[in-house]
């Protein structure tokens, strides 16, 4: 294939452009990683001397440990409840027509566009009006509302790809609907359910804005604890914590990518 100088120029400027954009995406992560090993207590760049003490502080700071466990509690409950509620509902809208179907679907998908501070404020006001305390159930409810759309979508896509003839075959062999559900439908949906759950869990663990409104000192999650830390201290502890965060997340995603195919989940695979 012949290539004119123009095409070649285009190709190379394209490559440089992509490299520059990737640098923009990566830059804050790199800067944080370098700052995390800074020995001084102020945010100076580049660091003059190196140390690991901010990692130690990130692990030993009580609010972070508490925030981590609080966050884990909220995440496990919220994403599991959302998984059950959301996938059951996705099954119903995929298979049946019923009254208020579209309305209900619209309401449950609306948290995708309602600002999270509106959701947080609403749940907070509702709690104060009904005299429900600012405990874990409140935080978990807000999180269920926010991650439900993702679980619904993931299950719905899996149902679209499910071969309904397998269920018909089970049915013709005399299986009851309940038995079909547990021995045919759910096992076939497992990958979709799992990725929906994982997605919901990651989003819930990182949710900040609505959580800031609905949590209290006793129920604050890790992002809220981190936010409070930035407002009080300017040392690199948070940089160390961010590094741990980035490494864990990138590792999880790389594993997910090689086992599940991230492109498939995100629907960006080329044909």
């Amino acid at each position, binding site marked *: 294939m012949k290539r004119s100088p123009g*095409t070649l120029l285009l190709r190379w400027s*394209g490559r440089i452009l*992509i490299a520059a*954009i*990737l640098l*923009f995406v*990566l*830059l804050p992560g790199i*800067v*944080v990683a370098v700052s995390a090993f800074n020995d001084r207590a*102020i*945010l*100076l*760049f580049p660091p003059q001397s190196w140390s690991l003490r901010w990692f130690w502080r990130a692990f030993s700071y009580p609010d972070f440990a508490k925030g981590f466990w609080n966050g884990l509690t909220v995440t496990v409950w919220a994403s599991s409840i959302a998984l059950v509620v959301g996938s*059951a*509902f996705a099954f*119903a809208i995929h*298979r*049946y027509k019923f009254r208020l179907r579209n309305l*209900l679907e619209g*309401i*449950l998908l609306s948290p995708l*566009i*309602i*600002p999270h*501070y*509106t*959701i947080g*404020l*609403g749940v907070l*006001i*509702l709690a*104060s009006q009904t005299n429900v305390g600012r405990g874990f159930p409140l935080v978990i*409810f807000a999180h269920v*509302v926010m991650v*439900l759309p993702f679980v619904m979508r993931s299950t719905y896509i899996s149902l679209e790809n499910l071969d309904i003839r397998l269920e018909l075959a089970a049915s013709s062999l005399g299986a009851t*609907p*309940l038995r079909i559900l547990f021995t045919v439908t759910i096992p076939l949906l497992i990958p979709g359910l799992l990725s929906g759950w994982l997605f919901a869990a990651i989003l819930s663990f*990182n*949710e*900040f804005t609505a959580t*800031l409104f609905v949590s209290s000192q006793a129920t604050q999650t890790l*992002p809220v604890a981190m936010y409070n830390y*930035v*407002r009080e201290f300017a040392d690199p502890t*948070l940089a160390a914590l*961010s590094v741990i*965060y*980035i490494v864990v*997340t*990138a590792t*999880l*995603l790389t594993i997910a*990518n090689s086992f599940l195919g991230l*492109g498939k989940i*995100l629907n*960006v*695979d*080329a*044909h």
Partner: protein
Amino acid sequence: MNTRPFLGWFVSPAGLVAVGLIAAMLAVFQYSVRAYIPGSLEVGGFTLQNFAAMLRPLYALAFWNTVLLCFETAVFTLILAYPLAYALVRTNSSALRSFILVVSVTPLFLGEVVRTYSWMIVLGNKGFLNTLLLQLGLLDRPMQMMFTAGGVVAALVHVTMPIMVIMLAAALSHIDRNYEKAAESLGAGPVRVFLTITLPLSMPGIVAGFSTAFAWTFSAFATPQLIGGGRVSTVSTLIYQLGFSSFNFPFAASLSIIGLALSLAVIALLKKAASPLERMAGTT
């Protein structure tokens, strides 16, 4: 025999969640038309005072700032995300594809606080960029980047990039390459093929990405709060300040109602403006 097994069992939990969500939204509506009693968490009688107060320059300006900020962020995000999405979908190297995918998707799962914090180190007066520019001799003294609208936009673009890349890549990956090959065989150069075939056909993704970027930026809180440092006031920072510094929940509620209405209106407008384009591209 029941032709719709489990219907009630499967729908009622979701119905319960929906009722809770509606109740929360109604609570916001209800508070937005209540009077604020200073120093108390109780609210007074019904009033439209909260909405009238929003016409005051301070609050009107916050709305204008927010819309401007969202618009700038969405435009810059689109410009930066498009080449990346294009490379992601079209590259022949699977290593490069995985790399772009993980690099551009990881930030999506990091949460607003971590990402905003990293930008604070980049933009600070003794931060990365200022140190770099000073050492290169391009600046005499640190340039103020923290607590400016420009700094907030830079961080917000970074926060919004992943979702834009995903949406654009989804649209680009569904374009039938035969259209491009046909144009090429008829003698069109690469630039012309891109401008007359690829770009119009990816319009649905551009619209979806742009409106999502707009909506996300509208609801962003940590970034304008921490990078803006109180000197860049947006709807979200104002609501938090009203709610948790002055406990004026009625006014905070009315601000979020108007904010919600505004962001829905802009998204609807974007969809409407783009629909002739989508029809042209032959997609629905």
